[in-house]
């Protein structure tokens, strides 16, 4: 601000609020996300099927039945069971060690349109 402007401001006192830019690491924006999945999914227990017919590899991809290292599917888990597995490390009900990890990996790869996706997505909503 040069001298002239300063003189003008002195004659017409105006309140200029202090404006801080905020810290580098801090967040200044919270974006509102749809809450729909959270409320409707709590209305109805949901389920996530692991398909049969193909096997599930350790990374969750579907492979030909009998592929070494892959496990069979053909089971359905409730949303509650998957939530407990994801958050609390509980074993998926009835699953062997390998099935637990392969099935969880499969679930994590679910995309919109696949059976079980809305159920899985609803588990992710923050409470």
């Amino acid at each position, binding site marked *: 601000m040069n001298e002239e402007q300063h003189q003008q401001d002195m004659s017409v006192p105006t309140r*200029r*609020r*202090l*404006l*801080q*830019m*905020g*810290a*580098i*690491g801090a*967040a*200044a*924006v*919270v*974006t*509102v996300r749809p809450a729909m999945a959270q409320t409707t999914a709590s209305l109805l227990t949901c389920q996530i099927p692991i398909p049969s017919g193909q096997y599930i590899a350790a990374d969750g991809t579907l492979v030909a039945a009998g592929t070494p290292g892959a496990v069979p599917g053909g089971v359905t888990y409730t949303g509650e069971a998957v939530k407990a597995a994801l958050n609390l490390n509980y074993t998926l009900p009835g699953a062997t060690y390998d099935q637990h990890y392969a099935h969880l990996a499969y679930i994590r790869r679910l995309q919109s349109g696949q059976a079980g996706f809305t159920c899985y997505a609803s588990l992710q909503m923050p409470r």
Partner: protein
Amino acid sequence: MIGAHYAADSSDAFSIVPLDALTAIYHRRSGVTHVVTDPVPQIIEALAGKTLSAEDLLSALAVDHEIVIDSETLAGLNARLDELTEVGLVSPA
């Protein structure tokens, strides 16, 4: 980023409602609502319908607000601009 320019939609693209310490902003083009702290509403207001570098934006803000213009404040403003770009309220130009 030095030399980078930023743009925001014209002011009629936003509905801005103060809520005590924070401000709610409805961005019409995206249909998304954001709840923000200062200096975000002031940044949006100063940048609406314009394309400015961070340095020029800081100078524009300093006209109506008490700001120390130095490298620290500029770094803070750049952090805010990165954040606003990420949520779609501001675009790199």
